[in-house]
């Protein structure tokens, strides 16, 4: 630490976990703390006295210099957010990615009265940024999944309603012929009981009834295929309907 050029009042700032640099009204670096030495690999002795925009040309943009000048005139502190600017003083992380920074500039009274320097304070928010980005991605995934589920539930409900309508329609197709067959067979039994019967007529009548029973069988087989085809969750209302119909 002795080789680092911080002395006097600024010495304590070498121990802070934030990058700190002080520039004078001509943008010359007056102070460069140990954290910035480590982040940028530039020793304080190499950069002190140098114009910061020469070392970091991206700071020459008017949108940056105008705001720095505001601080150098003793104006209010300014912040450069990481989301808009990413960083003011570029430096790399050990993995080679750029270090994302939240930067604050505050005016610091210079040695002469009315003259201000600007203290640039850089906070490393790379980890925070990574975590927030991951959180947003997870939130988006969950939101998308939720939307998918809501959509799937709506589709399932529509399918169930269609199935219910289909089952009711199928059941009515079965119930009516079954009632007819029952009535016809009761008629045949009455005729037999009364002794008023001719074998040929009975035979024809029974063949008609067999045809109707076949149609009922086909309807029931179709119903079984529909329910067996992944639509086994028959709504309770339909179950009651089937029970009522015996």
């Amino acid at each position, binding site marked *: 630490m002795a080789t680092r050029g911080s002395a006097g009042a600024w010495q304590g700032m070498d121990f802070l976990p934030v990058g700190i640099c002080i520039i004078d009204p001509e943008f010359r670096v007056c102070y460069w703390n140990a954290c910035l030495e480590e982040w940028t690999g530039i020793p304080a002795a190499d950069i002190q006295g140098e114009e910061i925009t020469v070392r970091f040309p991206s700071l020459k943009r*008017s*949108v940056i210099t*105008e*705001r720095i000048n*505001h601080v150098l005139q*003793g*104006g*209010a*502190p*300014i*912040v*450069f*957010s*990481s*989301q*808009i600017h990413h960083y003011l003083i570029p430096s790399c992380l050990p993995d080679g990615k750029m270090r994302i920074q*939240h930067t*604050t500039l*505050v005016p610091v009274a210079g040695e002469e009265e009315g003259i201000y320097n600007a203290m640039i304070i850089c906070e490393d*928010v790379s980890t*925070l*940024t990574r975590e*927030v980005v991951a*959180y*947003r991605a997870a*939130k*988006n995934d969950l*939101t998308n999944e939720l939307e998918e589920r809501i959509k799937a539930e709506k589709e399932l409900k529509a399918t169930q309603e269609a199935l219910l309508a289909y089952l009711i329609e199928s059941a009515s197709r079965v119930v009516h012929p079954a009632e007819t067959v029952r009535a016809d067979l009761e008629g045949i039994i009455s005729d037999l009981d009364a002794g008023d019967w001719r074998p040929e007529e009975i035979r024809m009548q029974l063949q008609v009834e067999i045809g109707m029973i076949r149609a009922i069988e086909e309807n029931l087989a179709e119903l079984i295929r529909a329910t067996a085809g992944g639509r086994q969750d028959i709504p309770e209302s339909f179950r009651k309907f089937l029970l009522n119909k015996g």
Partner: protein
Amino acid sequence: MTIDPDDLDAIKELVNIGVGRAAAMLNEITCSHITLQVPTLHVIGLDELDRVEGLSGPQRAATVKIDFRGFFTGTTALIFPPGSAAALVTAITGEEEDLPELDALRTETLMEVGNIFINGVMGSIGNVLGQQITYTPPTYVEDTITNIARTTRFDPDERVLLANTRFFVEEINVEGVIAMILEIGSLDVLLDRIAAVRGD
């Protein structure tokens, strides 16, 4: 305390100049088309702040504030309903999200937007005052207006210059409030300086 309508107009003009500068700066930084308007300005008591339309009730407000002290002492805050603040940030940064949250990164961005905005307004007022004012860095607070007003260091009967503000960014329209809470005497300092500039 009643304020002469001409004085109020003069303060509104100063705020508008500052807001215009802030809009130009924001446009340059974000490459968005941002328009700012200050349609109304009035003076209320600090204890009336929680009854301001859009800020009253139990809802939390997203606030960026900067304190200043010296011969002119107070706090300037830019206050938004949180949903509006998140919508403003996403519009400025060009993010595409249906229901944006005001997370840590967006809070930081809002702080920069508020910082530019407040500095514009304070710079404009500072030019009239003609003396050095000392400022703190911007801070972000999210709480009910009642709690924000209660935790300031000011007395409840101190005055607040309240300016409604409209941000138009791309296709969205976000309304916020600039509240400048002034310590007793500071409003008089400002009014005296305005009178001096006008040559009264």
